[in-house]
């Protein structure tokens, strides 16, 4: 297997996800299969090849630095939040 149980536990924490033991077993197998398939990329000689992050090689698309009216205002956006208090997002106590 190309991925271990420890790696899965670490990744799930990084991903803000949790899994049952059965799910972890399934992930070991499924992610392992996918990574095995992906490892065929090792056959390709990519020495000195440039990276493609964006197909049109776009970089830094600028616009004028002026304030534009947004489609949604503060109240529209706050209305989407499950918990709001005094025009602020409410979260569980952190400290």
């Amino acid at each position, binding site marked *: 297997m190309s991925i271990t149980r420890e790696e899965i536990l670490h990744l799930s924490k990084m*991903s803000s996800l949790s899994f049952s033991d059965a799910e972890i077993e399934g992930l070991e197998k499924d992610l392992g299969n996918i990574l095995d398939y992906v490892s065929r990329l090792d056959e390709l000689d990519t020495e000195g090849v440039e990276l493609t992050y964006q197909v049109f090689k776009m970089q830094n698309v600028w616009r004028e630095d002026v304030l534009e009216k947004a489609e949604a205002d503060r109240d529209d956006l706050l209305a989407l939040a499950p918990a709001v208090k005094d025009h602020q997002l409410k979260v569980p106590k952190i400290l």
Partner: protein
Amino acid sequence: MKIADKDTRAVDLVRKALDKAKEFEEYNVFISLNDEALKKAEEIDRRIAAGEKVGRLAGVPYALKDDFLSPEGKTTAGSKMLENFRSPITATAVAKLETEDAICLGRTNMDAFSHGASTENSYFGPTLNSRDKTRAAGGSSGGSAVAVALGIVPFALGTDTGGSIRQPAAYNGVIGVRPTYGAVSRYGVIAMSSSIDTVGCFATTADDADLVMGVMAGRDEADATSLDDFWSAEPENKKLRVGVIKDFMNSADGEVLKCTNDYIDKLKGLGHEVSEIEMPTLKYGLAIYYVVQSAELASTMMRFDSIRFGRQAENVKGLDDLYTRSRDEGLMMENKRRIMLGNYVVSTGLYEKYYLKAQKARTLLMAEYDRAFEKFDVLLCPTTPSTAFKLGSKTGDPMEMYLEDLMLASPSMAGLPAISVPAGETTEGLTVGVQLVGPQCSDRSLLKLAKETM
């Protein structure tokens, strides 16, 4: 498609579509229907009667994949996480259709967050194939493909990252258009993988698809990657050099191969010049796709923190528990699997091996397409290796499901336009699609060629 005018009432077009939506309810095409549709149709009829100018798509009902934001109804993305999400903003593609007076009939079913190739991975249950109810619709834009195939609406919107429009189009016998990356603004569309996502459509005729894409295409300040409108340029009237991708012909089933060969004969009969081409890098396309796609979506999926929007878990113990429990409850297993894969391939020590390697391989893949387009105007292969599979037959093995995109992932990674065109059916009555791929911004030539063959 029928457009409302003095003789055709918009109300009748919408009523007929609503009746059909009801008739085919068991296919589970729609997640929600638009309560405003009839009212909008009445307004268009009133304007026509008053002699006012109406849009190019006046009164035409269309189906909207449920990952396009608009204030009409809820935008669920096929997920529990967004089960009750109402957007205050409108996706540019939708706004442009509305400007031309098209009417959204309803929002269609999809694999949650577009993660899937069968629409079985929806929180709202699977959509059934239009030809055989025991088979999958394909996906992730399965609901939209079936809405058009069943004749409920003349066109429907979808999104295509690694094949989510083309594969369900093939499985339901309709045209599916994935345009050049950036042709249509992605503003207001729930992102999956930002360097690969596109907005496209399903239709039954090439002319309808061309009209709809033309309405949606063009630069949008709200999407930095959107391109200046190239859709207004007419495609050249000439015989095309068509390259048949030998590597993929070898991977297709007997009946799919037969339909593809019949399609090739048709192209030859029309005077196009057809020959074979070998493209050995394409067999790496799916591997490149799964690395880049998952890496990008692991990042975009982190926005679902359940604090700013989305469904929040109850009775949580602290902030970490809130994030984790909300995501556990709101996401499907496939969403989680892809997030895990994506975070794995960009993790310390593995980033070079997987992510950088794939982005370099992507450069090689694009170079191979560049070489192919020196000799050919269009590249052709089947859309899928086989026909629509039985419901449930691939849900237990993610890799098996991922292989659905074998022939579709490469053009996606290169940002190329790719369309699936109906190419007949098997003895069982299942539909087969042929994929046409062209250089960037050659979308209309592909549709013109499709039109000649239909």
